[in-house]
C-alpha cells in the first residue's frame, strides 16, 4: 500500500474562482445550453407563426382557384408599392430559413450535449412516468417535418416532383391547380396527412415547451399552457390535413 502523505484524490477548493473567457454577447449566450433553448423557443415561435398563417392562407382553396392564386400574388406584393415586389416576401423567407437553420442547429447541438451527458445508457428498460410520446419523439417528428418540408418545396414551389400541367409545364403561379394535381396522387395525399400528424405532435410539445424555456411562468396562466399547445397543434393539423382530404374526396377539384 502507498505510504505517501498526500492523498491521491485532491481536496476540493477554489472551484469558483476561475473566470470564464467571454465571447461576444450573442455567441456567449448561444454557447450555453439555456441560450440554445432560448434560440429554440424564439425560432419555434417564428416557425409556429409561419405554419399558422400558411394554413390560414391555404384555406382560400375552399373559395376557389381565383382566391388562392390571388392570395399567392398578394404575398408577392406585400408592402408594394412602398417596397419592390417580392422584396418583403424574400425578407420573410430568408428570416424563416434563418429561424429554421437556428432551430435545427440548436436541436442538433443540444442532442449532442444530451448524449454526452449520459455516455453510458441505462442497461435496463426505463419506465417513464411523465415524458409523453410527443416529448420523447421531438427529434423524430422534427426530422419528419424537415423531410416533409423539402418534399413540399420540391412539389409545390419548384414543381420538381409535381405532375406537369396540360401545357406540359409547371407554372408556379397556378397554385390551385398545382395543389389539386399533387393531391390527386393518393400516396402523396397520405404522406401529407401523416407528415402533418408529426407536425402536430411536434407542436403539441414544442408550443408548451416555449413557455418553460423562456421562463414564461405564472400561476394565472400556467394551466392554459398545455391547452394552448394542444389547441394550436390541433388547429394547424386539422387545417392542413383537410386539404389533401378535400382533394381526395373531390370537394376541391379543378
Amino acid at each position: 500500500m502507498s505510504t505517501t502523505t498526500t492523498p491521491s484524490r485532491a481536496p476540493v477548493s477554489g472551484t469558483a474562482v476561475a473566470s470564464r473567457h467571454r465571447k461576444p454577447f450573442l455567441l456567449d449566450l448561444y454557447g450555453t445550453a439555456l441560450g440554445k433553448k432560448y434560440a429554440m423557443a424564439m425560432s419555434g415561435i417564428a416557425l409556429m407563426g409561419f405554419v399558422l398563417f400558411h394554413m390560414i392562407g391555404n384555406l382560400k382553396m375552399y373559395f376557389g382557384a381565383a382566391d388562392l392564386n390571388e392570395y399567392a400574388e398578394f404575398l408577392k406584393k406585400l408592402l408594394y408599392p412602398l417596397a419592390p415586389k417580392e422584396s418583403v416576401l424574400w425578407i420573410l423567407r430568408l428570416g424563416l430559413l434563418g429561424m429554421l437553420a437556428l432551430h435545427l442547429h440548436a436541436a442538433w447541438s443540444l442532442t449532442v450535449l444530451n448524449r454526452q451527458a449520459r455516455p453510458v445508457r441505462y442497461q435496463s428498460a426505463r419506465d417513464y412516468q411523465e415524458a409523453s410520446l410527443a416529448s420523447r419523439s421531438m427529434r423524430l417528428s422534427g426530422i419528419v417535418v424537415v423531410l416533409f418540408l423539402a418534399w413540399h418545396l420540391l412539389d409545390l414551389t419548384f414543381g420538381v416532383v409535381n405532375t406537369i400541367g396540360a401545357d406540359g409545364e409547371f407554372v408556379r403561379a397556378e397554385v390551385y391547380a398545382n395543389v389539386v394535381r399533387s393531391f390527386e396522387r393518393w400516396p402523396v395525399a397520405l404522406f401529407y396527412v401523416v407528415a402533418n400528424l408529426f407536425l402536430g405532435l411536434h407542436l403539441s410539445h414544442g408550443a408548451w415547451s416555449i413557455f418553460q424555456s423562456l421562463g414564461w411562468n405564472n400561476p394565472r396562466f400556467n394551466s392554459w399552457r398545455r391547452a394552448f399547445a394542444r389547441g394550436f397543434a390541433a388547429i394547424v393539423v386539422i387545417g392542413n390535413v383537410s386539404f389533401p382530404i378535400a382533394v381526395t374526396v373531390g370537394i376541391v377539384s379543378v
Partner: protein
Amino acid sequence: MTMLDNRPAATKLNSKVPSGVLADKWDNFKANAKLVNPNNKRKFKVIVVGTGLAGASAAATLAELGYQVDAFTFHDSPRRAHSIAAQGGINAAKNYRGDGDSVHRLFTDTIKGGDFRSREANVYRLAQVSVNIIDQMVAQGVPFAREYGGLLDNRSFGGAQVSRTFYARGQTGQQLLLGAYQQLSRQIGLGGVRLFNRCELVDVVIIDGRAAGIVVRDLLTGEVTSHAAHAVVLATGGYGNVYFLSTNAMNCNVTAAWRAHRRGAYFANPCYTQIHPTCIPQADETQSKLTLMSESLRNDGRVWVPKNADEQRPAHQIPEEDRDYYLERLYPSYGNLAPRDISSRAAKRLVDKGQGVGPLKNGVFLDFSAAINRLGRNVVEERYGNLFEMYERIAGENPYEVPMRIYPATHYTMGGLWVDYELQTTIPGLYAAGEANFSDHGANRLGASALMQGLADGYFVLPYTISNGLAPLLNKTLPGTDHPEFKRVEAETRDRYRAYVNVKGTRSPDWFHRELGKMIWDYCGMERDRNGLEKAISEIQALHDEFKKDLRVTGSAEGVNQTLEKAGRVDDFFQLGMLMCKDALAREESCGGHFRVEYQTEDGEAQRDDAKFCHVSAWEWTGDAAKSHMHAEALEFETIQLATRSYK
C-alpha cells in the same frame, strides 16, 4: 461545601470558566481573549472534522476570518450530515412573542431540563448567542415559517412555557444545515476551505501533548493519510448508534470522538442518552433503524394498551373497559403529555409485561379516534397530515383508521468529549463541538436545543476561542506530517484495518453490531440497574473478544469497502458501550436520561443525589474501556437553585 466530601479524588480538570457574574462571563472572555492579526490568520491551519451544523458553520466562519481550513466528511457531500434529519425547530431567546422569554429564562429552562447536570456558564452563553443564530440563519436565506405580516413565526415546545421555537415546516434541521452548507460551499468555492469528502477520521495524532493533526482513511481508495494543523475541531456527532436501532443515520458513529478519547481526551457522561417516546416500533428482524415521529402527536393522541396481555381482537373492537390508558391513569395531571423519559419508561414496563401491541408486541397504541370524533378528520389532517402520511409510508397502516403504534427509541446522546469553556478537550489544540461534546445539555436535552447548540458552537463560540488558543502559537514551527509520530499512527491504522480483513471469521460486522445494540438497549437503555450493568460489562467484553476472533470482512482494505468501514466503527462502539455501562454503574442516582431503577421516588420519578453526584464524570482512557479512570468536574451552581424536577 460539604457535599464535595464523597466525590472522587480531586482532578486536574480545569473548566476555564471566566470570572465575573454569570451574565458577564462571555463578554469578559471575549474582552480578554487573545486575537490573531488578520494578516497572520492565514498562517494557521485548522482542521474541522464533520460538516453538520457545528462543523460546517465553524469551517465556514473560520475561513471567512482568514484561517486556512481543511474540512473532512465521510459523506459524499457536506450536505448529508445527520443534522439534516432534525424536524422540530430551533430555540432562541428572541422574545418575539412578548411572552416573557429572555436569555435568562432560556438558560434556566435548559439547566432544569438537563436535570441540573450541566455547566452554568456554558448554558448561559448558549442562551445568549441563541439570538444571533436566528439573525444569521435568516440572513443566509433559511426559509423559516412566517406569519402573514411577514415576521417570523414561533411554536412552543416541551419543557418551556414560552413560544421560542423557530421552525421551517417539519424540516428545520434540513434548512439550517443547508444554510450552513451553503456558507461552507461559498468558502470552498473561494478557496478558503479545502474539502476532503468521503474521508473518515481514523485517528488523532498527539505530539508533545498537543493535537498535531489527524489520520484519515479515504473511503474510496482505502488510502490512509495524515494531515497536520494548528488546531483540530471534532464536530462528529453523537454515538446513539451504539444501540444499533436508533433514530440516528446508518453511518453515525463514535469513531472520531473515541479515537480522540483513546489518545487522551476525556469522555464525559457517556451514560446520558436520550430516549424519544414516539418512534415507530421495530417491525421485523431485518429492521435497520427507527424513525421518529414528532412528539407533537401526543397533544391529541391517547396512549393505551389492552388490559389483557393475550388480547387477540383488532384495536377498534377492543371495548373501552378492556383498554388501559396508562398515562392518563398513572399521571392524571399530565396524562398523555407526561415528559419524555416518564412516558418512555411506562411504555417499556407494559411491553415488558407482555401487554405490547402489534405483530411483535413491541409497541403501544397512540390513538386518534377520540380526536377525530371530537375535532373532525379535517382538523386532525391539518395538524398532523404529513406525519400520518409518513407513518403510513413506513408502517403500512392508515392511522386515521387504525391506532398508530409507537415505542421509545434512542435519538440523542448528551454525553461526549469533555470540553472546557473554550470547547477544548483535555488535549490542547483539540476542540469538540456540537453533539460530539458533552456540554450544555446536562443529563437531558430539551427539544429544539440540539440545533441551537450545534450552531452556537460553530458560529459564535469556536471562532473566538480558537483564536485565543492559536495566538500563542504564532511563528512557532509545528510538526509536519513527516514527523515519525504521524508515520507511526498511520502504520498502526493500516495494520488495524488490515487486521479486520484478516480475521476471516464467520460473522459480519452488522451481526455483532446488532447483538451489541441489544445488550446496550437491555442493560443501559431506558432503565439501568447494578446487576444488569455489571452483567452487561462482562457480556460486552465477551462479545468483543468474539468480534476479534470471529469477524468476517469480505473484500480488501483497498478501494470502497463498506463492510470494512462498518467493522472499524463497531469495534469502537464495543469499547464505548463498556464505558457507558461503567459510567451508568458509577452514577448511583437517576437524573434526566439516566434512570437507575434503584434510585427512584415512590411514584417512579428519577431521584437525583446532588450530594454525591452533582458533577460531570470525565473518563480517562487507560488502555481498557472497562478499567477507565474517572475524573469529576464539580458543578457549581451560582445562579440556579438545585431543585427536584417535578411534572406533577
